[in-house]
Every structure is written in C-alpha cells, then in structure tokens.
C-alpha cells in the first residue's frame, strides 16, 4: 500500500488569511482504497486545506500532485476535472428540482434526463444508496439530501471524495447507513477523506487518521494501531480526559412546567404537538430528536420568540409561586424578573451580532439597564474581559468583530454572556455543534456548573453519546410529539435512536 503512488499528494502547502496562517507547510498524502479521517480542533485548518483541493481557495505556497503529476486547481471546475468532489456541510441543492435534475445541473452536453436517471440508479445500486431520482429536494430529509450530494459528485466521475463533517445532521442509524456506503466506495478503489470531530466515527470507519493542529500537520497513523485518547492528545497537544461528569442532582425541584404545548410555524405546519414536561432546577434535561423535530420551536416558544397555538408554560419560583410565560415576549419575561438564558442554534444569526465586537455583544442582554438615554459601556467591557479570561477565548482583542472568531470561540462568547446573567433557566441548542473536543468539554463543564448552582438546564443535543453521559433525564422528540422521557443513567443510544424515529419506547418514569 505504501509504495503505490498516492491519489493526492500535498507538498508544503501554506495558506494565509491576512495575518492568520490557516495552513503552514502541510505535506500529506491521500491514497486510493482507503478512508482517511482528517482530525483537528476548530480552526486547525482542516476545511481550508480541503477547500484548496476542491478549488475554493488557492494556496499561497506549495504544490498539489494528483496521481504523481503536479496540477493547478484554480476553480471548482478544475477540481471536478481531476476527479475531486467535496461534500460540504451546507448542501448546495435547488429545492424545487428533483434529485436527478440537481445531479445533472450545470453539466455540459444535451439534457437526457432518462439516461441520467438510469445512470443514477446504477450508481445507487453499486454502492447501496437509496435515492429516488424523481423525488423533489424539498420533500427530502437531511440525510436524503446528503445522499443526493454524494451521488452528484460520483455522477460527475469523482474518485476522490471529501466529506466535511457529514454526520453532524444525521441520526445514528442514518450515519451507519452512510458509513456502509463509504466502505463500499473504498472497496471500489476510491480515495475518501472525512473531516470529523467524533472519535467513535473515526474509530469505526477510517483506515488511517491524519491530525492537524493550529494549521500544521502533526502526523498520521493507522486507525487500528491507535485509540481515542492518543488521537485526542495529538489534536490538542496535551493530554485531556475524555469523561463527562454527571454529578447527582442536588435538591431538584420543578422550575419550568410545559403542558400540552402546540405550535404551528408560519406556513401552518404543526411543529409541536401536545408537548408536556417539567424541567427541574439543578438538573439537566436533555432533548434528543432528529433535526427539525420541533427542538427549535420548543426552545423559542419558552423564550417567548415563537407564537403558540395551545398549551401553557409556567415558571415556578422557589416558594412554589407560578407565573405564566406563555404569550409573553422576551422583554416582558425579563421585566417579570425571570432570568432565562438561551443559547440558540444559530449563534451568529440570533445569539450574537457577527459584525459587532465582543463588548457590544455583551451589551445585547444588558443595554436596557438604567434610566439613562445612553448605554453603559463599562460593565459590558468588564463582562467581556471576564468571559475572555474565564473561558479562555482566543481573540486578538475585545474590539474584534465576533464573526472573525472561530466557531468554538464564538460559542464561548455566547455561552459566557448567557451564563453571566445568572440565569434560573438555561436553554442550549446544539451547544457543541462544530466545536472541537477541548471547547466541547469546556462547554460541558460550564453546563455542569450551572446545574450545580441550581439552574434548570435544557440541553438540546445531537450527539447521543454525549446526551447519555451528560443529561439526567432525556426527552425524545419525534415529529413534534414527545416520544418519551427516559432516565439518562439507564438508557442507551440504541433506545434513543429508536424513539427518535418512532413514537413510543419504554418510559422509565
């Protein structure tokens, strides 16, 4: 295997963005018939490196060799001609077209849709995809859309595939299916690169692991000869513990009660259907479900951002007094003295203002305080200093626009601000999505500290491994309905996965 010419060879690749070096002198090889896992923390340059292969960026220095020949990749078109196909985190499909139409879109030559459908079916059969070429994209689940993206690059003759965090949006069952397909493709002699953060995926799927840290290539090894701990240490640069703490809840008492909550979105589609549960103070309530099962609507309804159709949301004070939250906007909830912190899924589009600096973002929650016409800038500045210091946020300065920070640091800023409010209810949506191991553990630790402080935590997560380790109780949503509420200490991934796709499952309570 070692003496074959690699499919792709990178030699001394360097890429800078202004003063930031995204990749420094990276040399590595990608081989055929092999699944390579590209590991690294956020901002370690994985995606940048792969974007240079797919023609989105152009390297400042260094050479790229395909099958031993030096090539120049100036645009995605060049990459396609060399057989390189990349599947991005955000799908690039036209909603109103069918799968087949999306796949042939932009190809040269005469349009022969029937011929294309035949070829698509052949590809699907060969590797075990399940796609109906005539189905419209808007009718598809996330996993189906991803399949279309993969078939699209295969259809165009790609034999070097790069997948950027492909499982972030999939259920465990869907991820398993994807892995089988990828294995089939590997056995067919294709070169596959998968960018991921999830250790168990690396271990179960890849043949070889390559690690980047701070833009530099650290090394590679055979997956069979390493383990999660060693890989993590290489990524982070020092050893870390991989266990999530789950202290026993101290004096849990009901804090938030949701009864029969029903929500329709703007298009009149039922997103939540009779959801009832109680969140306790001093406890982490995990919420699991396939993405789009109503998680977003649930949290936004509690936060006062989502109009509801029916049901009740009540906040319960320490002395047992109840106050209704339903029908109140965020301002009214704040004026009632209920401190409700919310870390939304869309960090830069909702939780923070990307173009504002850290100080101004800290001000978002507090700027109304006081009777003065003018904003108080001193306190937010101090808060920003604290957050940067306590959570170890990597930022050039406090006056840097937050959109310039890496994903992990953006999240630390957001979570830091929300926690500074000293909330009594903390809601987080996909708090560690796209975060590297180190930042993820920082966030888990922060959430646990809030739990210890008697905050009712609602944690919407997608990584079931984390949910079963972190949450005290787990509520599973399935198509807007509560599929069940289970004890986090007694359940497992399989059970949750089944409950996510089908109403029912055993109740432990």
């Amino acid at each position, binding site marked *: 295997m070692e003496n074959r010419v690699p499919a792709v060879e990178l030699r001394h690749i360097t890429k800078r963005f202004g003063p930031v070096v995204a990749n420094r002198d990276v040399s590595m090889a990608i081989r055929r018939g092999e699944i390579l896992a590209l590991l690294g923390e956020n901002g370690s340059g994985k995606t940048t490196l792969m974007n240079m292969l797919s023609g989105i*960026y*152009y390297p400042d220095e260094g050479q790229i060799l395909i099958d031993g020949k030096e090539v*120049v990749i100036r645009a995605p078109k060049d990459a396609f001609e060399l057989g390189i196909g990349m599947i991005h985190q955000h799908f690039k499909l036209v909603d109103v077209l069918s799968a087949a139409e999306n796949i042939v879109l932009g190809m040269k030559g005469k349009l022969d849709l029937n011929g294309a459908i035949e070829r698509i079916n052949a590809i699907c059969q060969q590797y075990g995809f399940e796609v109906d070429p005539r189905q419209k994209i808007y009718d598809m689940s996330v996993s189906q859309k991803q399949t279309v993206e993969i078939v699209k690059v295969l259809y165009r003759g790609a034999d070097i595939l790069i997948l950027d965090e492909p499982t972030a949006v999939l259920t465990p069952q869907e991820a398993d299916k994807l892995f089988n397909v990828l294995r089939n493709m590997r056995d067919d002699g294709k070169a596959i690169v998968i960018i991921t953060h999830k250790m168990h995926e690396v271990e179960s799927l890849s043949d070889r692991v390559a690690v980047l840290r701070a833009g530099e290539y650290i090394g590679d090894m055979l997956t069979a000869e390493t383990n999660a701990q060693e890989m993590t240490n290489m990524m982070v640069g020092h050893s870390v513990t991989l266990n999530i703490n789950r202290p026993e809840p101290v004096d849990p008492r009901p804090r938030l009660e949701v009864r029969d909550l029903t929500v329709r979105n703007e298009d009149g589609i039922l997103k939540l259907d009779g959801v009832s549960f109680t969140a306790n103070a001093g406890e982490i309530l995990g919420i699991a479900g396939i993405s789009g099962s109503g998680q977003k609507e649930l949290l936004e309804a509690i936060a006062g951002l989502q109009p509801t159709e029916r049901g009740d949301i009540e906040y319960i004070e320490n002395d047992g007094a109840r106050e209704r939250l339903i029908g109140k906007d965020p301002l009214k909830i704040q004026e009632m003295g209920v401190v409700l912190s919310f870390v939304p899924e869309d960090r830069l589009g909702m939780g923070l203002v990307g173009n504002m600096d850290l100080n101004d973002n800290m001000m978002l929650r507090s700027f109304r305080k006081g009777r003065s016409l003018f*904003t108080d*800038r001193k306190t937010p500045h101090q808060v920003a200093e604290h957050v940067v210091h306590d959570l170890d946020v990597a930022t050039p300065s406090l006056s840097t626009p937050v959109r310039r920070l890496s994903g992990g640091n953006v999240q630390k800023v957001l979570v830091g601000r929300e926690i500074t409010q000293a909330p009594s209810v903390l809601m987080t949506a996909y708090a560690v999505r796209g975060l590297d191991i180190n930042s993820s553990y920082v966030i888990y630790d922060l959430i646990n500290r809030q739990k210890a402080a008697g905050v009712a935590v609602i944690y919407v997560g997608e990584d079931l491994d984390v949910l079963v380790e972190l949450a005290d109780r787990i509520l599973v949503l399935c198509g807007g309905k509560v599929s069940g509420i289970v004890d986090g200490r007694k359940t497992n991934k399989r059970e949750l996965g089944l409950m996510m796709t089908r109403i029912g499952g055993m109740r432990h309570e």
Partner: protein
Amino acid sequence: MNKEPLFHISKRGAVPWYAAWAIRGCAVLLALIVCALITTLVTGENPISVYVTIFNGTFGSPRRMWVTFQNVAILLCISLAVTPAFRMRFWNIGGEGQTLIGCLASAACMILLRDALPGWAIICCMIVSSIVAGAIWGGIPAFFKARWGTNETLFTLMMNYIATQLVAFFCVVWESPKGSGQIGIINQKTELGWLPVIGGQRYLLNILVVAVLTVVMYIYLNYSKHGYEISVVGESERTARYVGIKVDRVIMRTMLLSGGICGIAGLLLVGSTDHTLTTTLAGGNGFTAVMVSWLAKFNPIWMILTSFLLAFLSKGAGEISKAFALNQSFSDILTGVILFFIIGSEFFINYRIHFRHGKKEG
C-alpha cells in the same frame, strides 16, 4: 500543465486605519491623474488650469466659499437624516421627497399665516410643521414595512414623485404673480417667516444648525440606547427579537427621525436659503446624500468629509463646463471617474492581489 493563474485574490484581515486611508489617498491621486489625462486627450485643455478653475469656482472668493459651505450644509443635513435608516439596513432613498415636503410645509406656513401671525410665531409653526411633514413622509413607508414587510427602497423612491407633484400643484395654487406658474420670493417685503441672519452672514445659520446636528447624530448613533438598537436591528432582526427589541417600533421610530431631519433640511432651504418653493429645490441632494452616507460608512463625522468632497466635485465640475465652454456632460465624466476610483479603492482595502511568482521551485 503548469498554468498558475496570473493573479489570485485573497481577503485581507483587519487593515489598520492608516493603511486604509493611504489606499484611499492613492485612489484620489490616481483619479486626479486619470481625469487630467482625459481632459488633455479629449479637450486639449491644460489639466492644471482645469483644476485651478475647479478650485477657484469653489473657493475663489468669500462669496463662493459661503455658497459652497451652504451646499455642503444642506447635503450633509440630508445625509445625516438618511444615515440612521441606513444603519438599520432600511434603504431610505426618499430623502429628496422628505426634504421637499418639509419645504412645502414651511412655505405653506409662510404664505397662509402671513396675515394672521407675527414673524416669530410663523417661524415656530414652520419648524414644527416641516419636521412633522418630513416625519410623516418617512413614516408612511416605515409603517408599511413594519406592518406588511413592503420593500422600503421602492416605496421611499415613489414617495419622492408624489412629493414633487404636490409641490408642483401648490406652486400653481400659490403662484405669484398670477399666471406665472411660479412662486417668487415669499414675503419679500415683510420678510415674515424668514429665519434670522446671524453675524451678517446669510448662510451661517444653516451651517451652525447642521454642525450641531452632526455632533448630536454622532452621539445618538454611537452612544445612545436607541442608536444601539438601530445597529442591532440593522445587523440581524432575529437577534433583535431574541433580546427583546421591538423591531417594528424601532423601524417606525427611526424613520420618523430620518424624515423629520429631512424636514429640517427643507425648513433651512425655504426659511433661510431660498425663500421660495420650486419642485427642484432639493436639487438632487436627497440622492447624493445616499452616496455621502455610504462613502463615510455611515459615520456622521466622516460624512463632513464626504459631503464636502461631493459638493466640491459637483460645484467644480459645473465651473469648468462654464469656464471652458465644455458641455455639462464633461463634468459628469470627471465626477464619475473620481467616484469610480474612490469606491473601487474599497476593494483593495478588503482584498489583496497576489501575482504569479517568478520561480516555482519549492
């Protein structure tokens, strides 16, 4: 196979302010050189003398200087008016109409109240009515935007034409002398409703009012809670809702302010500068103001510079077409070239261009 592209473009990080201004300075210099080349090639005139004419046309005599400053003041006033809306990403291109309607309100007070009230009372009415008129003209599109999500760009643009037609109508209603279809100087003998002249300089009042307005607007936008809300709404309405800002209310409030300040510009035009009412009184400043605001990146202090630059350009350009008997279009060409370079320089501030390396051995 070795076809490294001739150049490729990459984004710069944060550029220090002095580098950004050096790039902008180079752009202006280059623009002047290109303009000189065009002038010489096309007309055969000496470019230096053309520039001297531009300069003299603007600053040549105290009177000309005062006129220039007056033009800058009105342009800056309208620019200040549209800026809060722009910060909110509400593209108010109705500054022209909001100003005109302010003019109309002022003129109406001067004409209709001249027999009923003393001068100072008329002025009070003018101030209130012009601000209210401008605010209504700005508030209508804001209301529709806040309530039904209409497109503010089209709406504010259309409101300009309504304002122009209203003014045209009242020009006929109040025509003087009869049959001329024009309103001459209003209250020429009595000077009722004329804003006071300060220090013997006709235009000083306008300049002072706008100077105060500039500082107030800068503080309002950067240090007040309202200003902060405007920025948040502009950057992301979802974030604004998330922190409990009432987006509709902010849109309405900001557009009332925007229109109100345009009304002040109208008041200054009728009450202090021209003492008359015509459909072209705003003189396109409502549109130039958009450019002033954008070029200054919505910063009121920088807007002093950019409004000055644009007023200077249009004034100087007009001057050369007179002095050298050139077509007015020629001055437009020069203005266009200069703006092209200034706007184009922003590209070089944000991006860096890498040319092909000489050698390829690593």
